[in-house]
């Protein structure tokens, strides 16, 4: 009934319209004018690929002929109006010969011999520079310098496969949440070699970010359009390995568990094993921005998630900006990390679980949404020698006055040389600190310096047992512990001036 009436009304509208059009034709046919040609707007083309260009023509004197001429390539007319037609289109097939600019000009002549021409302009490149990825990486794949890769889903580098990402490449995740979230997931026995450089880091960001490989190549690593506090636009980077974990269901037939943020229905999300020196590849100079999509309550994707990653893996010079969940989270494993910066993330900055046994050396944490350090220990019966966090500088402000260090009775961490500044009123160390300090394994937090807000004392922020380890300093400049800030010269935080604003 509805379809019929739609058809009817469409038909009658068409009839009325055609009446008007034919009237129009009648009125103009008495006074012939020169033909008019309009060119399509500028286009992109690849060298060697044929591109179809459609020119619209109006030939009141009746179409007679058309010719096409090309710059930097060849052009042939593939279709044109029939002889005597008063309007129509000329389609030209263009094939470029080299990168740069190209153009196609067509000339249309009517039966009276009058003619007009128009030129279409093209940008010719050697090859495609934006590639959308929807399939898992199952072999040897390289993502190249100068190109942008769009993650169309949760892309896994599956066991046995290797993904190499060259410095200067930009990886962007499409928007979505839940089952729709995008991420790069390196499964156990998969390898990620993402080695950026000081001058050409690898940027992981959202499709909403207008940053380009050209911009990165020019040395500008800042986002041209997104603020450094916009989060949750895509997932994040997840690396999983075979190193030991202390998970709650180990000891049965499995010593593997499913990583947070990946539904159990995807077996690429399993991690854990017995190979302490396992290698998942090498990750250097990468900046991960605007991620942290929600999967379910308490089940988000961290900026960089490391599950059971072995110490054969290299992780150096990492920047995480505006991740909705934690910045970096270690679930067991033995991997070490050097020069790690986390800026404006929504939850904890560093989160450790399941008896991770590596070391983070040189770390800068700025304005986390929750605890800068959320540190846990074994969840199963496996225990390790514990992990180490040393040489860290923490700017606390903005975290809603949550705990600066969150430890509990089974936290297996040694922390040393930590500098805190920008404290909130009410900032504390976990109330479980005495339980932690009472551990029999010798784990301890030592050598803390703090820049106190005016009118406050060390005891306002630190528990009694920790006070002997805390030294108040007048300013960041006077501190003798903390991170070597020069390691973060390449980061967006530094380039944007945010670190200068903090006096770093």
């Amino acid at each position, binding site marked *: 009934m509805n379809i019929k009436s739609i058809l009817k009304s469409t038909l009658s509208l068409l009839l009325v319209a055609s009446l008007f059009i034919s009237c129009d034709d009648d009125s103009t046919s008495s006074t012939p004018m020169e033909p008019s040609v309009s060119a399509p707007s500028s286009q992109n083309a690849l060298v060697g690929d044929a591109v179809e260009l459609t020119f619209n023509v109006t030939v009141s004197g009746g179409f007679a002929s058309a010719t096409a001429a090309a710059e930097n390539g060849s052009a042939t007319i593939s279709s044109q109006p029939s002889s005597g037609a008063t309007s129509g289109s000329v389609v030209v097939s263009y094939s470029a010969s080299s990168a740069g600019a190209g153009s196609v000009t067509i000339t249309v002549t009517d039966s009276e011999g009058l003619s007009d021409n128009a030129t279409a302009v093209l940008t010719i490149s050697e090859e495609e520079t934006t590639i959308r990825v929807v399939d898992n990486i199952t072999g040897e794949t390289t993502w190249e310098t100068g190109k942008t890769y769009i993650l169309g889903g949760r892309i896994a580098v599956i066991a046995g496969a290797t993904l190499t990402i060259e410095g200067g490449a930009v990886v962007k995740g499409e928007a979505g949440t839940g089952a729709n979230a995008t991420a790069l997931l390196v499964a156990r026995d998969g390898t990620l070699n993402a080695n950026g450089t000081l001058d050409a880091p690898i940027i992981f960001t959202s499709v909403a970010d207008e940053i380009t490989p050209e911009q990165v190549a020019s040395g500008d690593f800042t986002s041209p359009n997104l603020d450094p506090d916009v989060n949750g636009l895509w997932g994040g980077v997840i690396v999983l390995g075979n190193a030991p974990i202390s998970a709650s269901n180990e000891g049965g037939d499995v010593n593997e568990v499913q990583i947070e943020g990946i539904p159990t229905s*995807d077996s690429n999300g399993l991690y854990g094993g017995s190979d302490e020196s396992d290698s998942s590849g090498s990750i250097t100079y990468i900046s991960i921005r605007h991620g942290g999509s929600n999967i379910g309550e308490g089940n988000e994707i961290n900026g960089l998630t490391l599950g059971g990653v072995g110490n054969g893996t290299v992780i150096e010079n990492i920047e995480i900006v505006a991740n909705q969940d934690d910045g970096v989270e270690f679930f067991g494993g033995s991997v070490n990390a050097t020069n790690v910066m986390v800026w404006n993330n929504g939850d904890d900055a560093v989160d450790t679980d399941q008896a991770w046994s590596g070391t983070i050396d040189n770390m800068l944490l700025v304005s986390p949404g929750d605890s800068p350090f959320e540190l846990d220990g074994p969840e199963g019966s496996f225990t390790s020698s514990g992990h180490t966090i040393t040489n860290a500088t923490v700017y606390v402000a903005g975290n809603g006055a949550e705990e600066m260090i969150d430890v509990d009775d089974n936290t297996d961490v040694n922390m040393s040389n930590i500098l805190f500044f920008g404290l909130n009123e009410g900032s504390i160390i976990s109330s479980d600190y005495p339980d932690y300090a009472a551990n029999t394994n010798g784990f301890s937090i030592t050598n803390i310096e703090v820049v106190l807000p005016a009118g406050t004392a060390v005891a306002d922020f630190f528990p009694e047992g920790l006070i002997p380890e805390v030294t108040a300093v007048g300013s960041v400049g006077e501190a003798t512990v903390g991170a070597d800030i020069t390691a973060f010269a390449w980061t967006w935080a530094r380039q944007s001036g945010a670190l200068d604003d903090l006096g770093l």
Partner: protein
Amino acid sequence: MKTILKITLILILAFVPFRIFAQDDMSNTADEEPGLIRGSILDEESGEPIFGVSVFVQNTSGGASTDFDGKFDIELPAGTYDLRITYVSYRTLIIESVEVTPGEVTILSSIMLSKSVEEMDEVVVTASAINTSEVAMMSKKMKAANLMDGISAQQFDRVGDSDAADAIKRVTGVSIEDGKYVFVRGLGDRYTKTMLNSIDIPSLDPDKNSLQIDIFPTNLIDNMVITKSAVADMPADFTGGIVNIETKAFPEEPFFDVSASIGYNPDMHFSSEFLTYEGSNTDFLGFDNGKRDLPTGAENDRIPTPISGDSPDQVNDFLQGFDSTLGPYATTNPMDYSIGVSLGNQFRVATDKRLGYILSATYRNSYTHYNDYQFGEYQTQPNPTDYDLVYATRQSGTVSDRNVLAGGLAGIAYKTSRSKYNLTGMHLQNGESSATNFFIDNSENAPGQSGYTADSYNLVYGERSVTNFMLRGTHYFTSSNWEIDWRVSPTYSTMVDPDIRKTAYTLSVSGQAPRFVAGAGGNPSRIWRDMEEVNYAGRLDVSKEFQMLNNPSTLKFGANYVYKERDYEILTFDMQNFGSWPDFTGDPSEIFRDENIYPNGTIYYQSGNPDPNPNKYNSTVENIAAYVSNEFYPITNLKVYLGLRAENYVQRHTGRDALFAQGDVSGNNLDNEKVLDALDFFPSTNLTYNVSDNQNIRFSYSKTIARPSFKELSFAQILDPISDRIFNGGLFAIGEWDGNLTETRINNIDFRWERFSTRGQLMSVSLFYKSFDDPIEIVRVQAQATSSEFQPRNVGNGEVFGAEFEFRKALGFISPLLRDFSFNGNLTIVESEIDMTNQEYLARKSREKVGENINDTRQMAGQAPFMVNAGLQYTNPAIGLDAGFFYNLNGETLAIVGGGLFPDVYVSPFHNLRFNMNKSLGDEGQTSINLSVSNILNDTREEIYQGFRADDEIFSLFTPGRAVSLGIKYAF
């Protein structure tokens, strides 16, 4: 809905003239209105109606003969008459003193004729003796080929039960869960089935197998039968029991009843803390008028967001499509109430043709309110000497719920001398609006948990409807004793949860303002769930009575066809900020304000729905069945029933997992592919040895099946927004589970001794054994420690061995004073054992505590180890009073299978004591009053975690409180 109202109206109008005509029919003689005697005549031995029996009115010329339903009616002037009932080879029966009053129907239900041994044998009884016996159902039960029990209109009319759930609790061996779901022998919902007029009806609850039966008023019900051992003409997919409700076709007497009730629960009603929210203005009718509809464009996989490329105005326009209400407010709730009207009649339209109709409408509004509802997620500890369970998340808070049920049923029936036609239509409309506020405490000490506290608000609306039509024909070939019965029945059902809103403020440890933290309490989210199901059922049953080995026997054969199709979809949206959240105070009404919505503020919604959507599926079932059975006596007193049923069951699924949905072709995708395809043969054998007139020994064997549901055989991942628990479809291969979810095949053996005596007394002892191949259980997903995920899986084989003791005893033997009291009860004790899968065994072994000894077998999930039902009743029809106490208790039942990190969850015993009283008032009992008190012991509903040497911890807990309800029914 509008159309349904219209249809109802048309039906009512259509019937009005008939009613007038029906009255005219009886007022055709001059001075005094005549009356009507109406009765039915049954074979005492078989309980079957007898055709062609002559009924003479002594000393008059009046008389009639019974039709193929054994029914007759005779119109007579007012007065007192004797009836003489004769039939060849049966004893002649004389019924004395049958009163006929002007314009009324005198009913003689269940007149039993017995076989005569001598010629001219005569029995004399009074009319009142006929009407107080319960022999019909008892005889049916005693003479049935299989184990069955039931209750007929005759019984519940007498005691005034108002709805089917009320009435069925009088049947031994049956318990009622939540006042509406039937459980038989303590077997869970998976193994129980509910049918209407022998046709499958989908449940209003998507997670339940069986239909809630409290929606049927008793005056529409002819009988309810519970089948406990299989027969070939019933579907094979039950194990505990099938409850079949047959609606009336030809009401014995005209009725026009109006009823109303109120229910009061001091713990729930008139509470000023009842949570509610602005719903649609048709919520009171049980449906949403569109206020909760998905905003335009939200169904697309790309929705306007600050980063979608749409202009800020477009994004704002789109966001304005979402309802701005995200939290509840407190108000004072009224108490429960309901009203109902039902009418029906039958009348003659020609000499041997009659028409019957029934019509009913009910409306019910109920409120539940729990001040302290609790949920918990608990875990075991790794250290073998740490016995205590530790919590990952605890939630406690308020749950308020308003439930509206509106329903209508209309039936029209037409009977000729050889055929009967019956058309019924039913619509049920149910809307449930709930609002909750929970305090969430997540422990950082538990594995995988980050530790936070949050204040959460949920707004949920569930709209369900079922529309069913049935056309049935019965044809009786009196000369050859063939009977053909056919039914076709389409059912349309919808279950929609539009705009579930979940908002949780993460609280600050240091007393700062609450905010949204994705990694803690999460961002606000909204969910739309939509399910539609069509169900076409048809069946043809043919039976013939004949003589075999000089005894009556019955041959039956037939076919059954069922086609079901379900479409399901879940759409989710997460609130995000583009930059930072506005400053909040913790009041959910402050969030979705104009100034906060992009681009005025930072708030926008992000889609969680890829295209294709992994949470969208279509499933179909085609079940073609055929059966043949014969019932005969190889020797006198031994009845043998042999049946064989074949079912060809094909279930198809169209769906995909998240991986495929995101574009990876290596993901799983099913396009109308078979997920179940089996031809099964289900033999059933029932032997009944009639030890004496009132004693039977029975043996039965049958094979039955339990099949996974549509939801279980899917790639769906369904988040329960209130408890935050995730259901995974069984098709996902997770860890050791290969994703091949299959049917459970069950062998059933029953052995029973039973003795019947007068006034419905009985005693029986049964032993039963059931073996389960590949039973399905809901299993905790071990690989996932961060969230609570569950999946249906086939586990190791199981066995159930049980004993059942059942009795109904009148207490007159103690003292004549107690002659109107009766005591009934049943006790079922069940030993169940299931083989653990290797994965489960190893997971349990990994957390074996010092002193604990873990076996590789355990109790079967869902099977209560014992079940007690008891009732003490006073019944005195002379004064129209029926009152009783009813008690039900199920033993501690394993509900969710744990292992490893996760302890097992058990349903704690609930001591359910209930009082019910019905009293009819007035000369003819036009008014009846019902008073009931539920949960007299004020027990708590509790599901608990249990661990070795550990204190029990709460999985869920709520206190239903005591409720009193008072109903009144007036018959015009």
